[in-house]
């Protein structure tokens, strides 16, 4: 541990301090508030501020993902599954409060105990920063010709992790499909409409919303593709693009109703997409196997120039990830909105 390394006090540390302060405020607010609605929004703010902090810590890719997922999709998922049987949560019982406080204190003490030996913040010669991390920085460009080292490590060096990650998303999608079904028949009869909206006041009241959204949707989809294909040069990649494109369709569903969205992007296509993505990813790996080298080795994909092979391999698995993530996000959204809980007025 490099003893004489001192973290300089400059503009960035001040910004970090303020961001940390905000995080603490939001964290404490979530602890104390019991209005579920506020909690959901605070959770969104929490992940947004942590995305900002990630940006100031040079973790641009992670900030991108955290903003897309933490602030965006999680809030929509929470609302989609929104089960406000009652707007406020019951306050925790005192005995449970003290017990959990004690457990938390113990774990916190264990971590604090470890802090003393941790390398100081930002020290370039600390164990993690000076060893394999540096090795990746040096070898990524010559090996894969991809400037964004995070994308190259994610897709090629530790490509197997990302295969695991894509399978995790698929499992989650599968889980939601199994638990909630995708809004077809609920044990036999077609889902009855809780409130008959067709003739209700949903006439052309929201022209503003409709027109702006119609204008926004192509832009969002294009931006999604930009993020997908520029994953090599800047933050972005299969996962973030998948989320963006899925959120475009979700916006459409919000405005024009889930049934319209299901007509346009049918559940069957989405289910196939979820499986297809993982198969593409796994298939690229097996292609490496068939061409005689180890699993997930892209060098052999292009016989005459290894780095180009790497680029090809990375591009194909990014597409795989895009398809899976986009489809699974839609599967989850369809799943949640298909089992709309008919919240009666009394508990609203």
């Amino acid at each position: 541990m490099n003893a004489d390394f001192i973290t300089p006090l400059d503009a960035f540390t001040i910004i970090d301090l303020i961001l940390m302060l905000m995080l603490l405020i939001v964290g404490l607010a979530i602890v104390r508030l019991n209005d579920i609605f506020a909690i959901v929004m605070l959770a969104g703010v929490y992940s947004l501020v942590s995305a900002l902090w990630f940006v100031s810590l040079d973790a641009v890719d992670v900030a991108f993902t955290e903003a897309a997922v933490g602030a965006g999709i999680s809030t929509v998922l929470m609302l989609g599954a929104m089960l406000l049987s009652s707007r406020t949560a019951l306050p925790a019982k005192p005995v449970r409060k003290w017990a959990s406080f004690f457990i938390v204190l113990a774990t916190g003490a264990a971590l604090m105990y470890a802090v003393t030996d941790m390398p100081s913040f930002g020290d370039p010669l600390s164990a993690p920063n000076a060893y394999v991390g540096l090795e990746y920085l040096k070898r990524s460009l010559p090996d894969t010709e991809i400037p964004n080292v995070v994308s190259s490590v994610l897709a090629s060096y530790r490509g197997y992790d990302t295969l695991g990650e894509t399978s995790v998303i698929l499992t989650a999608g599968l889980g939601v499909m199994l638990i909630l079904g995708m809004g077809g028949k609920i044990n036999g009869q077609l889902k009855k409409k809780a409130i008959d909206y067709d003739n209700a006041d949903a006439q052309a009241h929201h022209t503003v919303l409709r027109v702006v959204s119609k204008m926004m949707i192509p832009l969002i989809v294009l931006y999604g593709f930009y993020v997908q294909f520029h994953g090599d040069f800047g933050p972005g990649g299969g996962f973030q693009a998948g989320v963006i494109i899925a959120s475009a369709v979700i916006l459409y569903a919000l405005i024009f109703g889930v049934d319209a969205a299901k007509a346009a992007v049918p559940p069957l296509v989405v289910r196939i997409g979820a499986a297809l993505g993982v198969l593409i990813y796994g298939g690229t790996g097996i292609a490496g196997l068939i061409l005689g080298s180890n699993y997930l080795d892209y060098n052999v994909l292009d016989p005459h120039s290894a780095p180009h092979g790497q680029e090809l391999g990375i591009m194909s698995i990014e597409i795989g990830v895009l398809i899976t993530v986009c489809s699974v996000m839609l599967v989850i959204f369809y799943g949640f909105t298909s089992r709309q809980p008919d919240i009666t007025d009394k508990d609203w």
Partner: protein
Amino acid sequence: MSTVLEILHIARFGLAGVFLLGGGFFVLAGAIGVLRLPDFYTRLHAAGVTDTMGSTLILLGLMLIAGFTLLSVKLALVGLFLFLTSPTATHAVANAAHKAKLKPLLGTYRQTRKGDNEGGSQ
């Protein structure tokens, strides 16, 4: 010739600085407005201030600094998106509040320094 470029250069940064600080000022004003104003609908206006003046000034300032590169195009895009989404969002919020029968505070409303505010008449 080079001096003209230099002057232009300095002017550019100077102007950008002015824009940035102005934008910052408007954003702060909007934030203070959101806190001070008594009722939901009035706060909408204060929020509007930041979205419009604040963002345009800051983004223009940044574009000046970025000069004539792709970055400023991207900044313009951010501006465009903000211009599209924020009024719609404010409209949507107002619409939802209106539908939920949230009564706006009408009539005159005075709030003096001492912070004692007489409620507006209906």
